[in-house]
């Protein structure tokens, strides 16, 4: 996949989540919207082509990319080495913190205390992979299809704990104030644009543009718009391209 092909075609097909507020949602008109949508639009603008936002789901977003249904993903895809075996990542364009939250009374200061507990996560999400990595023997990780189901499991009492991003945690606090609190941080996740392996030219152009957008404040503006706070420094300052999911050492 080369930028030239996309430009010739006049449309770029970009996969994004629509069930991951505030990054990807459907607005009241039923159109994809959110932080990811705005980033995707900026990228399309840079290519000088029309944007076609294709809704994907957490479990199927990588298959979508690998089977040529879309040109790339701006789908809140956390950069991890596992995923980097299947797709190539750009530099980060957003970041979230993943933590474990749970019922107030529970004393879970760190991952070791999870033994014997049930923790809900969205399947194939960063919380899933990072929790799986740190959870001790005897942790019961329950994987749901999306964050909403995991949250519902927490609220209905089916699980006492879930792994979730800071944005989801904010929503839980709104839904049920003072019932749950954050136990410990799991990971800081940075999200990258993902392309099919081997699409080096395309990746290069995306990286270039992201570097630019971080400098001229465009990315910051939409971050303020959707998340109500400026782009965190660890994203804004990180413009190194990714190799195997890690910053390339210069």
């Amino acid at each position, binding site marked *: 996949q080369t930028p030239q092909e996309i430009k010739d075609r006049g449309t770029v097909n970009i996969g994004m989540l629509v069930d991951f507020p505030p990054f990807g*949602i459907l607005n009241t008109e039923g159109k994809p919207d959110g932080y990811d949508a705005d980033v995707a639009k900026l990228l399309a603008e840079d290519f000088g082509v029309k944007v076609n936002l294709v809704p994907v789901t957490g479990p199927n977003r990588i298959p979508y990319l690998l089977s040529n249904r879309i040109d790339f993903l701006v789908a809140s895809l956390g950069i991890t080495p596992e995923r980097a075996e299947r797709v190539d990542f750009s530099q980060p364009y957003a970041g979230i913190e993943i933590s474990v939250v749970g019922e107030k009374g529970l004393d879970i200061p760190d991952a070791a205390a999870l033994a014997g507990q049930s923790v809900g996560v969205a399947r194939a999400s960063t919380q899933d992979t990072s929790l799986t990595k740190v959870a001790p023997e005897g942790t019961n990780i329950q994987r749901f299809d999306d964050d909403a189901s995991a949250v519902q499991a927490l609220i209905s009492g089916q699980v006492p704990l879930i792994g979730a991003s800071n*944005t989801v945690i904010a929503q839980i606090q709104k839904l049920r104030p003072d019932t749950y609190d954050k136990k410990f941080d799991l990971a800081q996740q940075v999200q990258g644009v993902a392309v099919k392996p081997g699409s080096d030219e395309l990746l290069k152009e995306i990286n270039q543009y992201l570097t630019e957008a971080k400098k001229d404040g465009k990315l910051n503006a939409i971050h303020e718009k959707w998340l109500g706070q400026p782009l965190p420094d660890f994203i804004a300052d990180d413009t190194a391209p990714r190799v195997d999911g890690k910053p390339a050492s210069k």
Partner: protein
Amino acid sequence: MIREFGTSDFLFILFAVRWTLLLSAIAFAGGAVGGLVIALARVSQNRIFSGLALGFIRVFQGTPLLMQLFLVFFGINIFGISVTPLLAAAIALTLHASAFLGEIWRGSIQAVPGGQHEASWALGLGYLDRMKSIILPQAARISVAPTVGFLVQLIKGTSLASIIGFVEMTRAGQIINNATFEPFTVFGLVAVFYFILCWPLSIAARQLERRFSRATAR
């Protein structure tokens, strides 16, 4: 960031009904053609035809529709042939419906009493006339009830098309739920919509079945 469940969300789910309906219609139309072929092949004297038809029925009745959808959508694309979600859903649902309708209709054809075949042989009617004028019209009558019953199954089955990105009713519900966190409102509504679609068909199927069993009881 969470919004209240509002009219626009209601409408979003309501309008997703058309995809449920469209997918069902496509599946039913495709399944009708495929099912007839399968059924005729299955009752034919030719061992190869009936064997192939049996194999087809076994495979597509023996694996989950969910997996069929997935494999058609992503599988065909891997070989470089582009399939749209609609086409993929149409293919997978057609294969699925062909297997089930083929089996239903095979049963109906075989339920036509043997005497009817014999009488039409004795009158010298050929294969096409026999099928067209004698056997299929009677089989059709027998099959109406189970066919309508299967339609209900099919409508509900389209909810699985969400796995390949179709925003039909169930998927619409999931999306709205992610934005509103009111699962019981959202999924309750979705359930009600399905019920409104399916219930009249279920009733029709049952009444047709009654009428048929009364007609044959004499």
